[in-house]
């Protein structure tokens, strides 16, 4: 009883604070009557927000009273089940477009999620493995997209010729932008990479003669299957015409789906292979302790640059695919929010975990996309989710680590045991 009174008092205090916090914007709404600004009080909304805070805080306190914190064992069990989750997800991903009667919008959503999975896996090399905090990853996405857009519209190259070029160009930019920031660490590195991302976006926006400025680039060609186009018109050079079937939009969407699935799987495969090789081990060592790395003779500069370059390359591939999928690109697609989204996917997944990225991408991209009716609240929910997940699980969904190399039997450990130096 005493405890309940204390809890009630606590919840009342929280409600009072909520009243103060929400009063300016939920309780009052600015509008205009054509000439002057006017204020409209909206006490109903404010009351709802305050009431929700009160009930929420009370529920949270009761939950803490009656339920002890979940044991750490749970995460180990989750890690064990990960062995089966990943293949199951893969099988589902491959078979999804063949589910009879599946609407095109779902396959389209799958394409979107896979794009972010690929971006997440690419950034995971930089952030999760090498421990370099990159807030400007969208720059490489933009470089890939614009490389394809410009090469295709100016020189008439197709998707498959441009894909490697976009990757190479993005990798060059990765080295170019990575070189100056080699000495920076942690938060400073994050801010400088953010600045680079913004600079690239500003250049794209303002260099109108090359990039079309805010209007972007139109009519970027779609990917083809060995020269077969996916047009609705049919004809001998179209997919439908060649195989003698009726053209249907789902063929094109499914094809895009498999292209991005393949690209994403290549990213994953390369990452997994690299982790087993000296380079990947050097990355992980660099993440743990840069000074120890240096004293053990690892070339820190080259190791960091390769991480930037390879991460950027996959970002470039994803950008190239993005341009091909939409057929249109503009600077609006490459804002800081994109970088934050991809970084959030990596960190929420549990940085370094490949499966975590997939789960986080499904949650962060799939859930808001399904909430179409709440479109205006999408980013609000996204931001709240970032804060809440960080507070509840600062190590991300998959918070265990299996060391890539070890003496004797490999043991799964909690990520809290990992030092994560200041690299």
């Amino acid at each position, binding site marked *: 009883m005493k405890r309940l009174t204390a809890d009630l008092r606590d919840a009342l205090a929280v409600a009072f604070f909520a009243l*103060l916090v929400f009063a*300016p914007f939920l309780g009052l709404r*600015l509008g205009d009557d054509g000439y002057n*600004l006017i204020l409209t009080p909206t006490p109903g909304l404010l009351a709802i927000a305050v009431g929700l805070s009160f009930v929420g805080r009370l529920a949270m306190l009761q939950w803490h009273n009656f339920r002890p914190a979940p044991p750490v064992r749970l995460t180990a069990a989750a890690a064990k089940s990960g062995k089966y989750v990943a293949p199951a997800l893969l099988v589902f991903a491959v078979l999804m477009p063949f589910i009879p009667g599946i609407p095109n919008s779902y396959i389209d959503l799958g394409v979107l999620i896979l794009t972010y999975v690929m971006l997440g896996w690419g950034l995971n090399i930089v952030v999760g493995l090498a421990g370099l905090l990159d807030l400007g990853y969208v720059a490489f996405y933009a470089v890939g997209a614009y490389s394809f857009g410009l090469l295709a519209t100016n020189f008439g190259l197709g998707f498959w010729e441009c894909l490697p070029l976009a990757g190479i160009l993005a990798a060059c930019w990765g080295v170019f932008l990575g070189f100056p920031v080699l000495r920076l660490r942690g938060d400073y590195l994050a*801010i400088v990479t953010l600045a680079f991302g913004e600079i690239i976006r*500003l250049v794209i926006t303002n260099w109108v003669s090359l990039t079309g400025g805010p209007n972007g680039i139109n009519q970027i060609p779609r990917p083809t299957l060995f020269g077969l186009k996916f047009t609705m018109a049919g004809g001998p050079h179209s997919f439908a015409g060649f195989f003698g079937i009726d053209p249907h939009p789902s063929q094109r969407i499914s094809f895009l789906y498999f292209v991005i699935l393949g690209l994403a799987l290549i990213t994953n495969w390369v990452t997994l292979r690299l982790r087993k090789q000296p380079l990947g081990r050097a990355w992980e060592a660099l993440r743990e302790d840069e000074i120890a790395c240096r004293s053990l003779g690892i070339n820190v500069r080259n190791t960091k640059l390769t991480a930037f370059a390879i991460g950027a390359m996959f970002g470039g591939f994803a950008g190239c695919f993005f341009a091909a999928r939409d057929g249109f690109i503009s600077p609006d697609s490459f804002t800081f929010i994109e970088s934050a989204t991809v970084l959030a996917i990596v960190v929420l997944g549990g940085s370094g975990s490949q499966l975590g990225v997939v789960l986080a991408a499904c949650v962060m991209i799939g859930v808001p996309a399904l909430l179409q009716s709440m479109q205006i609240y999408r*980013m609000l929910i996204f931001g709240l989710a970032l804060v809440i997940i960080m507070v509840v699980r600062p190590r991300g969904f998959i918070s265990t680590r299996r060391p890539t190399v070890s003496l004797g039997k490999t043991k799964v450990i909690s990520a809290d045991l990992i030092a994560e130096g200041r690299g």
Partner: protein
Amino acid sequence: MAYALQQLINGLTLGMIYGLIAVGYTMVYGIIGMINFAHGDVFMVGAFIGIIVLTALTGVTSVPLGILAAFLVAAVFCGIYGFTIERVAYRPLRGSFRLAPLISAIGMSIVLENYVQTSQGALERAIPNLIPGGITLMQENGFVVQLSWMQLAIVVVTLVVLASFTYLVTKTPLGRAMRAVEQDAKMAALLGIDTNRTISTTFIIGSALAAVAGVMFLLYYGVIDFYIGFNAGIKAFTAAVLGGIGSLPGAVLGGLLIGLIEAFWSGYATVAYKDAAVYSILAIVLMFMPSGLLGRHEVEKV
């Protein structure tokens, strides 16, 4: 010459606003070592509270009183915002791994932007110039160099706020506690300083300063939207880094320099790339002078 003088005046005014925001960044970075990514958005919240207060006081004829009310209310409410943000999003993550507070701060920044956008609408909001007029300093070939009352007011308010803030940090027990926690939080706690409270106070003060900057931005430009916090935040952070992060005079100096650079760049080079210029400076400073102009050089212990 006249043109340069005008840009100097404009740059200094802008720099004062950046300096005030930068102080909040540098204080928080000094005390808990994290970039408070949501700080720029607290500045935006301050500007919006300012416009709400000014709208609510439409009938009041005394302009100075209305503006004073806007400053005070915005400062109080932003202080509450700062306290709440720290309590909800940062305190549970203290001592967690280094990426967690940054992600949480980015989340908080997105929340604040979208909270204001959904509750107040995405439209730009404008107010008329409340302090019109000014003094003409000189005239050259028909180009008039003017110091508007508004600019003068901004400079004066900033100086007053910064002076009282400096007094607070250097002379009061609270300021001593803040400096102690900044130097060594654990030792300060052992000596009986309530570190949690000190950190909360730091957030409240920093946010109140950002609110003052926000209201000044509103009065100076007359137009605000929910997105002004992002750019202003990065520029103010650049200012804090340029001055040497952790150093309070450095933050103000950095703010003035950034304001001047922006004004002169817009005046003599291209306006389109003024933000890019500031971002480049951020990168260059961090690469070649990571401890900034007035910052302490950090020695790395192994």
